[in-house]
């Protein structure tokens, strides 16, 4: 294993170099979602007949949390292919590579926190003690992103179809999860309930978003997230121990 400080430097270099040829660099990380929220925020609050001061915070926090989730899910399927040279040179272990990839996704996300702050100021949202739960949710989400990156990384290096499958699913999941739409007044009991109760993405989104919106995270969400976390790490550690030696042959 490479030291954590070295991995952090690698993450930073990778992130900085990613935008090397652009004019405004990492500002794009902010500009993309800002444009999305500004245009679709007003459109969809009109379409769904919800006041903008309710809808835009819901959309903004949901979109940013989604970007993090989808960054983990889609990035994970090709994580080892992208680091083929490093694997074959023998310097970095799979754990090192996963750590750098996860940290880069998180670094990307941290830039977007500016949007959260702006939304809080513009709509004068209250920051309560419970809002801090969002931070806990974020930590749990990142932890799940870590096992997922290793798990999908190993599966994806063997079955290159995984990338296609995941991209297709994530497009559907984005629209099927309440991000650009809001559950009606009946919440999970309403007609759209199935899209929430049986949608793991929704529960991961909720543990980050709900506390920021001043809502209480339902116990179902905590249970689902806990189950995913425990089983995810357990299954991934079995996978890792059995298949880590195969990755250099498949990559």
């Amino acid at each position, binding site marked *: 294993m490479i030291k954590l400080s070295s991995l952090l430097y690698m993450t930073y270099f990778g992130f900085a170099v990613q935008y090397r040829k652009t004019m405004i660099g990492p500002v794009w990380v902010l500009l993309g979602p800002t444009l999305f929220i500004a245009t679709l925020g007003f459109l969809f609050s009109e379409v769904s007949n919800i006041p903008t001061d309710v809808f835009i915070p819901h959309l903004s926090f949901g979109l940013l949390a989604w970007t993090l989730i989808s960054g983990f899910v889609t990035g994970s399927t090709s994580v080892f292919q992208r680091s*083929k040279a490093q694997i074959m040179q023998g310097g970095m272990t799979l754990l090192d590579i996963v750590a750098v990839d996860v940290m880069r996704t998180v670094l990307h996300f941290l830039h977007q926190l500016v949007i959260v702050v702006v939304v809080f100021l513009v709509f004068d949202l209250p920051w309560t003690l419970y809002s801090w739960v969002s931070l806990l949710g974020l930590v749990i989400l990142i932890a799940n992103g870590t096992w997922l990156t290793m798990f999908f990384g190993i599966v994806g290096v063997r079955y290159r179809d995984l990338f296609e499958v995941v991209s297709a699913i994530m497009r559907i999941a984005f629209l099927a999860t309440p991000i650009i739409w809001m559950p009606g007044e009946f919440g999970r009991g309403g007609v759209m309930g199935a899209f929430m109760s049986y949608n793991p993405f929704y529960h991961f989104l909720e543990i980050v978003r709900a506390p920021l919106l001043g809502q209480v995270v339902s116990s179902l969400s905590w249970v689902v997230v806990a189950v995913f976390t425990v089983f995810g790490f357990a299954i991934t550690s079995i996978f890792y121990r059995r298949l880590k030696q195969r990755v250099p042959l498949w990559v």
Partner: protein
Amino acid sequence: MGIADFLLKADQVSLSVPVFQPPDRQIMTNPLRFISDLYLGRTHRGVANLLENVSLELVQGERLGLIGPNGAGKSTLLRLLAGIYAPTMGTLKTNGTVKGLFDISLGMNPEATGLENIYMRGLQMGFELREVREMIPQILEFSELEPFIEKPLNTYSTGMRLRLAVSVSTMRAPDVLLLDEWIGTGDARFREKLRDRMNNLVEQSRGLILATHNVELMKSLCTKGLVLNKGTVVFQGDLTEALEFYGDSVGSSSAKS
């Protein structure tokens, strides 16, 4: 003392990998088969035995030459000894650091500057930032790339890129050095500098395993020889005898390169 006197010990190691054989593609000979090949073809599974029952031991100060035709498994064996591939069967014991110089020109970031690539490669090799920083003056001096070091790597010529990669990768000697072909690049003058650097690296390491088709080089560096053919050891012993054995048997029956 309790410290083993060997540097590296492989005991009956085998490496077999699942292979996925795509269906016959006959697009070139019969364009009409395109659709059936692309959409209806099934991939067949099989197992390829890349290495079978390979045993070897390297002790302090020993230099082993791997001899064999193309595809004999020399590079695979080196990667296995470096710990990149894990043996399917058998055991591999190492005593100290075992590092190889494999594909050193790959894995550089073309958008990043030469300097950033030095840092990245250094960190990836397991050095700390502080250590890389200390190495930089030496790397710049050796590679003679100081005037270009702040420029992105995609402005470099192929030769310059190789010089950069070589200069970083050969900075520190491991206990056991694995070499898949000798590294020589650049113009005559740089080549000479690099030869000195490589010789130094070999001197500093406590053991060497070298795979090369350059017989003269192997004679000048190695003391022992191991002849591989189709993944199995066919001869192991003194270098001159190994080269003779290879010349008599394997080399004459299969194409040399």
